[in-house]
């Protein structure tokens, strides 16, 4: 995950020859919030690494952290759009639970007549579930966008309705297990096409480290790609006469990110490689970063969240945009519900309950504003990991659930407090 550097300083189209670098301090200060959040995550990880006696960074545990938080992150992506647009969605937990239940009933629970048996195929059922989620989101979005019912109320109602519906279709029981193909969504890892590499010189306690080589190859390709685009972007800015961050910072930033990616890839590779769900997440995160930074659709979300009336008078179809945002949120909640169900290998009536709060907390820790118009995908993802690492670390340390809840509450409050404090100081 990269934290994009906000370009600063003056740029003038009329004087292309005057490209120059900003000072290191200035560039750091301008992007303090982005770096600060990433730094906070790293510090929290190091803290727990120390207090769990090194368990946190064990390959198996890192893999677990990703699997445990994947559904939160998937939903946080959609929630970021919702919150930037100035709304909220309280129904995502229940919707994800309902979709998990629907998936279980389609694949296992219902005795489908032979002519409908194809619906139980995991791929068909998965597609139906995604569609159902999008339709649910769209229905709520329609009421919010066109009838101007506050999102808080519509989705609060949705939360109750879908909580009830999951109970109803599961008839109060847990349904499972799922077919093996469906379980792969959460339990599977990408196949090692190249074959394992044994690294005897890294042997620990007489045990060889065996690396999942495909994972390493993918990581290296990702780093090469990232550096290629970073250099190209920088060159284009210089060619057009715009200021760029100092070369030293540019190098440091890319080296640090590359090192982090390599480190985590190595960790995953020395366990079982890339989990399938991380691939899905990675693609989604990349797409949402691109959507919010570069697509006109994303830009319009920020515009309408920042000032709805001004956006409408600028020709933005505010209703339609809001409608799409909730439809996207619904589809992501459906995906999260399937990941969750596949992970537990059964659908339970209680599944998904309360998840909406974790998702919303992740987005706010990530720096989004409750008033709309402000928030970044990278922030929401880091926010979700901060919560996830804290859950994981505290559980390993044996901290009681009551304390865990309180500490998480304090962290949420502290993150938002720190944000506002910074904003007031700079204003």
């Amino acid at each position, binding site marked *: 995950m990269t934290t994009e550097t906000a370009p600063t300083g003056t740029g003038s189209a009329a004087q292309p020859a005057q490209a120059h670098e900003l000072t290191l301090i200035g560039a750091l200060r301008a992007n303090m919030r982005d770096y600060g959040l990433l730094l906070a995550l790293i510090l929290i990880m190091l803290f727990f690494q120390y207090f769990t006696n090194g368990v946190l960074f064990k390959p198996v545990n890192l893999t677990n952290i990703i699997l445990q938080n994947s559904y939160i992150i998937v939903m946080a992506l959609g929630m970021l759009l919702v919150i930037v647009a100035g709304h909220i969605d309280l129904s995502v937990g229940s919707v994800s639970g309902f979709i998990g239940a629907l998936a279980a009933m389609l694949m296992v629970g219902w005795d489908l007549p032979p002519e409908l048996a194809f619906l139980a195929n995991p791929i068909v059922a998965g597609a139906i579930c995604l569609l159902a989620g999008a339709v649910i989101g769209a229905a709520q979005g329609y009421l919010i966008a066109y009838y101007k019912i506050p999102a808080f109320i519509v989705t609060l109602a949705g939360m109750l309705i879908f909580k009830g519906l999951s109970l109803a279709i599961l008839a109060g029981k847990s349904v499972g297990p799922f077919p093996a193909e469906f379980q792969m969504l959460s339990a599977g890892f990408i196949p090692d096409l190249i074959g394992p590499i044994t690294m005897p010189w890294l042997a620990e306690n007489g045990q060889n480290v065996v690396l999942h080589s495909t994972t390493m190859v993918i990581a290296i390709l990702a780093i090469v790609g990232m550096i290629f685009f970073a250099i190209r972007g920088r060159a284009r800015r210089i060619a057009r006469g715009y200021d760029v961050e100092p070369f030293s910072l540019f190098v440091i930033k890319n080296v640090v990110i590359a090192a982090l990616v390599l480190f985590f890839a190595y960790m995953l590779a020395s366990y079982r490689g890339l989990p399938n769900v991380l691939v899905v997440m990675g693609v989604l995160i990349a797409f949402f970063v691109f959507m919010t930074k570069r697509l*006109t659709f994303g830009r319009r979300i920020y515009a309408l969240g*920042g000032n709805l009336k*001004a956006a409408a*008078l600028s020709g933005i179809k505010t209703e339609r945009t809001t409608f799409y945002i909730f439809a996207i949120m619904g589809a992501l909640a459906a995906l999260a519900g399937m990941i969750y169900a596949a992970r537990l290998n059964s659908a339970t009536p209680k599944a998904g309950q309360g998840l909406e709060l974790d998702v919303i907390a992740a987005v706010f820790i990530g720096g989004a504003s409750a008033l709309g*118009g402000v928030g970044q995908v990278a922030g929401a993802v880091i926010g979700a990991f901060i919560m996830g690492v804290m859950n994981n670390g505290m559980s390993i340390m044996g901290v009681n659930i009551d304390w865990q809840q309180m500490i998480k509450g304090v962290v949420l409050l502290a993150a938002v407090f720190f944000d506002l404090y910074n904003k007031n100081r700079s204003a």
Partner: protein
Amino acid sequence: MTKTILEMRSITKTFPGVKALSDVNLDVREGEIHAICGENGAGKSTLMKVLSGVYPSGSYEGQIIYRGEEQHFKSISDSEHKGIVIIHQELALVPLLSIAENIFLGNEQAKNGVIDWDETRDGARKLLKMVGLNEDPDTLITNIGVGKQQLVEIAKALSKQVQLLILDEPTASLSEKDSQALLDLLLEFKKQGITSIIISHKLNEISRIADRVTVIRDGRAIETMNTEDITEDRIITSMVGRALNDRYPPRTPKVGDVVLEVKNWNVFHPQHRERQIIRDVNINLRKGEVVGIAGLMGSGRTEFAMSLFGKSYGQKISGEVFINGKKVDTSTVDKSIRNGIAYATEDRKTYGLNLIDHIKHNTTIANLMGVSRWGVIDDLAELDAANDYRKKTNIRSSSVYQVVGNLSGGNQQKVVLSKWLYANPDVLILDEPTRGIDVGAKYEIYTIINQLASQGKAILVISSEMPELLGITDRLYVMNEGRIVGEMPTSDASQEKIMRSIVRAEGKAS
């Protein structure tokens, strides 16, 4: 009337990186109306915030001596306790509470925390009478106009036993009639011995009611003048630090063919289906022409423009719009923009700008197509466009990444203009383009309007300031109660002539 009620000595206030006030001295005599004027960002409001304790004692240097004693106000309630009441530009009323509740907000007529409603209403009625407002104290604020709301604010100030009343641009959003009433009220208070400080951009008002004027420029008090020395030219010269021989740039119109034609335009009130707001309006605009719509507040000018622009106001809209002779659909904002119409709103903060975002994003938002392909924005093309328009409209900022909310009013207005220029319309409707901005920035906006016209755009200007319309337009429509009641070339027009068309129309209507 020579006793000094307030003396501010060597006030210096620094914000991080900016010296907002440096060594300002101000003395106000008991019972006078003292005007403070200066360009936007000159430091007038900051000085008043220092005085009223919004910036607490200790956050600035210098002394405040009020009634012979040095004061250290820690908060607004400290200064109010001494009878200094400030009424801000943005009114601080709660829309869904009644007039009486608002008057006594924070100062409830209560015993042991239980509100005495009879006393509240009686007290309110008394105060309303003093300010000449004939409304039931139980009426909700949201149901009365801005002019009356201003009077409620003053009644609220009176309830606090005001001795020194500070008004920050009190007439900025008032109609001519309401402004007059307000100024008369201040003169009435003066007779009762209340001292007033009034911050205003409207020089004619200042010369009418003020006893003395202090001009502030770039955080310094430039000079204080007595009434007899006050002339608009002298104030302007002192404000901008240079002689402004002409407040309007010279204009040599090159008028071409008809670009916009609106026929039989009718609009009804958005809530009350029967109330017709716009009646049978027919107007046209030519290439390169600057046309004004004059009229009083509430004459329907803004409503007409907004109903034209994507039906953003009203219902049951009927009529036809032609651009370059072709009938076009303007039923949504998007379609209006694509057909070459742009509308820059009178209220840039509420309807015009995303204040929490920077200049670049605000510039391109109405024409993202221009910097994107297949829905993907080209950052650098966008940056080029934003820099280009920042230069063209002369926006003063550190870069296009400056957040719009932190710009001064004049610069914000230039961002609004940039946004609509970037949408490249044939017809640009500017609603109160210079409201609340200082003389220097006004001149720049007029210059931009002239340039646009000479590039062949047709420009429709709505303004409540008649001298402005007379100064910058080629032709004028006069609107009253939703009808066009007059049309004249500006060379033939005068304030009297415009008022006469309005009055004559009123006579016909009744």
